[in-house]
C-alpha cells in the first residue's frame, strides 16, 4: 500500500513543486525584457532625474530586491534558500510589509468565497444531474441541458461583468464591489454578517452559475447509464417512490466521479478565483494580484505565484492521501 500508492504520489508532489518553482525562477530570467531596466526607464520616463551614480545605486538595490544579483547559479541557490525559510521578500507597493503578511490577510476571503461556491455548485449540479437523468424526456430536462451547455464555456470575466451590469447597475440590488461596506466594523454581529453576505452574493453567483454546468453534465452522463441498469428498472417496477429511487439507487451509484472531482477542486480553492475577485474588487488573493500588476509589484506577483503553486499542490497531495479512505476500490488494493 505504502509503496504502491503513497510513495508515487509523494514523488509526484515533489516533482510538481520542483517544476513549478523552477518555472517561476526561469521564466522572468528568460524573458527578453529586464525588469530592472524597465523599472528604471519607467522612473526616468515619469520625469525623475537621476544622476549616473544614483542610477547605479538604484540598479544595485533593485537587483538585490528582485533577487537578481550575482551569477545565475548564486541567484538560484539564494532563491531556494529564501523559499525554504518561507521568506518571499517585501512588497514594493506597500513597502516594507512582507508579501507573506499580505497573503495571510487576503487568504480567508478567497478560501471562504471559494469553499461556499464549491459546495453549492457541487450539490446543485449533482442533484440536477441525477434528477434529469431520471427524467430524460421531460421538457424541463431539455431546457436545463441547453442552459448548462450554453453557459459552461462562457469566460468568468464575461459572466461576472454581465452580472454586475444587471444586478448592480440596471437593477441596483447588490453592491458593485468590495467585501464589506466602508465604515462597517469587522466583528461577529448580525449587521456585519448581513453586510458580508450582501457583498458576497454577486461574486458567489457568478462562480456558482458557471460551476454548476460542469458538475451537472458529468453527473448526468454517469447517471443516465445507471438509470438503464436492471436494478433501477426493478425498483421502479416494485413501485418505490421516485424520490427514493433517485436518493437510494441513482445518486449513490453515480457519485464516485463526482467525489473525485470534488476532491481535485478542493485543491484549486487555494489558487483563487482571480478574475471574479478582480471584477468585484473582492479583497482576496485575486485582488491582491491585480493591485500588484497595476503597481508593477514584481515581488508580490512572484510571491502569489509561489504561494498558489505550493498551496494547490499541497492541498492536492493531502486530498490524495485521504482519498483512499473514501474509495473502496483503492482501499482494498
Amino acid at each position: 500500500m505504502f509503496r504502491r500508492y503513497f510513495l508515487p504520489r509523494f514523488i509526484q508532489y515533489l516533482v510538481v513543486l520542483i517544476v513549478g518553482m523552477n518555472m517561476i525562477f526561469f521564466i522572468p530570467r528568460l524573458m527578453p525584457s529586464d525588469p530592472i531596466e524597465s523599472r528604471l526607464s519607467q522612473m526616468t520616463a515619469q520625469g525623475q532625474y537621476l544622476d549616473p551614480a544614483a542610477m547605479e545605486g538604484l540598479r544595485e538595490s533593485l537587483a538585490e530586491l528582485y533577487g537578481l544579483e550575482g551569477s545565475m547559479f548564486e541567484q538560484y541557490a539564494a532563491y531556494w534558500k529564501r523559499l525554504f525559510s518561507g521568506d518571499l521578500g517585501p512588497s514594493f507597493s506597500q513597502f516594507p510589509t512582507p508579501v507573506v503578511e499580505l497573503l495571510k490577510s487576503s487568504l480567508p476571503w478567497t478560501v471562504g468565497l471559494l469553499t461556499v461556491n464549491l459546495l453549492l455548485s457541487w450539490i446543485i449540479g449533482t442533484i440536477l444531474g441525477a434528477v434529469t437523468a431520471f427524467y430524460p424526456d421531460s421538457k424541463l430536462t431539455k431546457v436545463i441541458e441547453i442552459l448548462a451547455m450554453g453557459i459552461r464555456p462562457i469566460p468568468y470575466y464575461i459572466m461576472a461583468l454581465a452580472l454586475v451590469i444587471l444586478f448592480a447597475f440596471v437593477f441596483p440590488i447588490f453592491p458593485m464591489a468590495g467585501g464589506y461596506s466602508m465604515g462597517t466594523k469587522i466583528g461577529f454581529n448580525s449587521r456585519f454578517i448581513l453586510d458580508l453576505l450582501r457583498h458576497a452574493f454577486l461574486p458567489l453567483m457568478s462562480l456558482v452559475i458557471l460551476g454548476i454546468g460542469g458538475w451537472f453534465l458529468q453527473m448526468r452522463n454517469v447517471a443516465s447509464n445507471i438509470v438503464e441498469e436492471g436494478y433501477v428498472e426493478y425498483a421502479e417496477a416494485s413501485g418505490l417512490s421516485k424520490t427514493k429511487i433517485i436518493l437510494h439507487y441513482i445518486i449513490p451509484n453515480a457519485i464516485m466521479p463526482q467525489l473525485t472531482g470534488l476532491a481535485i477542486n478542493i485543491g484549486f480553492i487555494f489558487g483563487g478565483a482571480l478574475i471574479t475577485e478582480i471584477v468585484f474588487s473582492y479583497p482576496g488573493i485575486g485582488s491582491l494580484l491585480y493591485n500588484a500588476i497595476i503597481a508593477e509589484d514584481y515581488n508580490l506577483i512572484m510571491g502569489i505565484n509561489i504561494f498558489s503553486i505550493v498551496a494547490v499542490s499541497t492541498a492536492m497531495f493531502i486530498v490524495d492521501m485521504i482519498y483512499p479512505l473514501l474509495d473502496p476500490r483503492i482501499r482494498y488494493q
Partner: protein
Amino acid sequence: MVRAIKDLFRHDKKFRFGFSIMVFFIIISFVSLFSPYDLSTWNVVPRDLSPSLKYPLGTNSMGQDIFWKATAAVKNSLLLGLIAALVSRIIAIILGLLAGYMGGTVDRVIMTITDSFIIIPLFPLLILVSSILRASLDIFVLGIILGLFGWANDARLLRSQILSIREREFTKTAVLSGMKPTRIIIKEHLPHIIPLIMATVINNIVWVIGMEVTLSVLGLSSLNTPTIGTMIYWAQQYQAVFLEMWHWILTPIVICVVLIISLYFISTSISTYLDPRTRVRMIKGE
C-alpha cells in the same frame, strides 16, 4: 473529414447552429480587410454616436467605428486562437506520441512533467509572463505564449488514445505483415487520432479566446490591437456602462459569448460523433 462534417450538419442541430455561426464569423473576419479606416488610430470618425445607417453599431468615445473595430476584433481573436492552438497542438502531439509509443522511462518522465503542468495554477504564471512582456505582446507573441501553456491535458489525452489503438488487432496485423513502424503510425494510427485532435483544437481555441479577454481586461496585452478583449478593456476604461453606451460595451460581450458557445457546440458534437454508441443514436434522429 468532409463526410463527417456533412453527416454532422445533417443530423445534429447543435452542430448546424455552431457551424453556421462560425462560417458567419469567418466571413466577418474577411470583411474586416476592407475596413475604410485604420483601426488602431483614434479619432477617425465623430465620437459617441448611436447606431445609424452610416455607423451600424455607432462610434465610441475614442472616435472609432464600432462595427469595423468589431470585425477586426473577430479576425484577431480567431487568429490568436489558431496560432495558440497550432503551437500547443504541436507540443501535445509530439509529447503524446512519444510517451505513447516509447513507453517505459520516457513515458514516465513526460507524463510526470505533463501532470505538473496540469496541477500548477497556470493563470498567475501567465500574468507573471505578460506583466513582464506587456507592451510587446502582439497577437503572435501572445499566441505562442498561450500555446506554450495550453498543451498538457491534450498530451495526456492523445497518449491514452495511442495506448489503446496500439493494442488493437489491426496494429498487430500491420506489424505481422511487415509494415515499418513509421508507416504504421502515419497510415494506420494517424487517421484515428485526427478527429480527436480536431475536437481538442476547438476546445483550445475556446480557452485561448477566454484567456485573451481576461489578460486584456487586466491591461496585459498590446491594447491598440483590436481584439475582443481590448474592445472590452477600452469600453471599461471609458465607463461605457455608466454612460449607458450599450452598443459599445455589449458588442464585444455578445460577440464573445456567441463565438464561444458556437465553438463549444461544434466540439461537443464532434466528440459525440467520435463515440460510436452516441453516433448511432444521433443519426437515428434524436
